């Protein structure tokens, strides 16, 4: 809910007072946020965020995992931004760490009519074990589906599930009749 409120506030409040900055800081501190960005995502920005993440995640092994999942999730945000060019509702990316996990959280606006398909896919992924996820991934890889797909033929979400080795947490927060804010949280064990 916080994500939605934040986007909403950013949109409506053109003048940001110092209390707002303080509250945001406190909230980010409380949630152990290492890195975050709210706004429009471009490929240049993604390169910068990836570079910053490399310096923010300790341990090469876990860094590799975080980095892999981060690329897929940021690419989703870019793709989304592209589809809603006419309407620049800010998306958000957060990299944080708590006791046992690094977590990546994203939020972006989607059309309500796309929710059921997305939800189905997320549920399917969440109900599969690692072995079945790898099988599913391989079957898409080997399928004769044409190569012209820019969306990775749906591999991204499966890839993130395999690498994170944890269930997705997600939510849909209504914006208006036709749109919602989709939030996704992916956890990665900080000790591998």
């Amino acid at each position: 809910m916080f994500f939605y409120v934040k986007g909403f506030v950013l949109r409506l409040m053109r003048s940001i007072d110092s209390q707002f900055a303080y509250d945001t800081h406190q909230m980010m501190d409380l949630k152990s946020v290492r890195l975050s960005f709210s706004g429009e995502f471009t490929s240049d920005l993604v390169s910068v965020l990836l570079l910053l993440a490399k310096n923010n995640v300790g341990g090469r092994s876990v860094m590799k995992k975080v980095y892999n999942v981060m690329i897929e999730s940021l690419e989703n945000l870019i793709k989304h931004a592209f589809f809603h060019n006419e309407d620049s509702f800010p998306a958000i990316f957060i990299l944080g760490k708590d006791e046992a996990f690094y977590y990546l959280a994203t939020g972006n606006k989607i059309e309500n009519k796309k929710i059921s398909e997305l939800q189905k896919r997320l549920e399917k992924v969440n109900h599969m074990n690692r072995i079945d996820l790898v099988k599913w991934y391989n079957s898409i890889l080997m399928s004769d589906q044409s190569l012209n797909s820019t969306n990775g033929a749906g591999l991204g979400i499966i890839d993130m599930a395999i690498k994170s080795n944890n269930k997705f947490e997600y939510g849909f927060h209504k914006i208006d009749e036709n749109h919602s804010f989709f939030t996704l949280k992916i956890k990665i064990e900080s000790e591998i």
Partner: protein
Amino acid sequence: MDSLKIEKQDTTPLLDFNLDKMEFILEGECRPENGLVFFEPVISWLDVFIDFAGSVELGKKLEFHFKLEYYNSSSAKFIFNIFKRLKSLNSKGIQLSVLWFYDVLDEDLLESGKEYEKILGLKFHFLALQN
């Protein structure tokens, strides 16, 4: 037929498919926004190469050095297709050996290599980089 070389860029790897040495290298990070833009010319080149390989004098051994540290999901299918094409060289009398390099701490990359090996029915040599 000329070799194919594409220099490394921010989101795409070094690609060096050298016909004189019969050594193909793919090295770096591969996360193009649109996989098709980067890979389509590569796949087309490989199709020509595979035709060519049967008709003209070339080395009888090809080494493919897979040194990608990372590839995104929209590249995965193209990479599979590159391997599939290279596999077909066997029938042209060219012996392929695949060297899959990975960071010793990157289990996911090793696992991905083993999956490709399995679904392609090819034998890879896995080389752990210590850094």
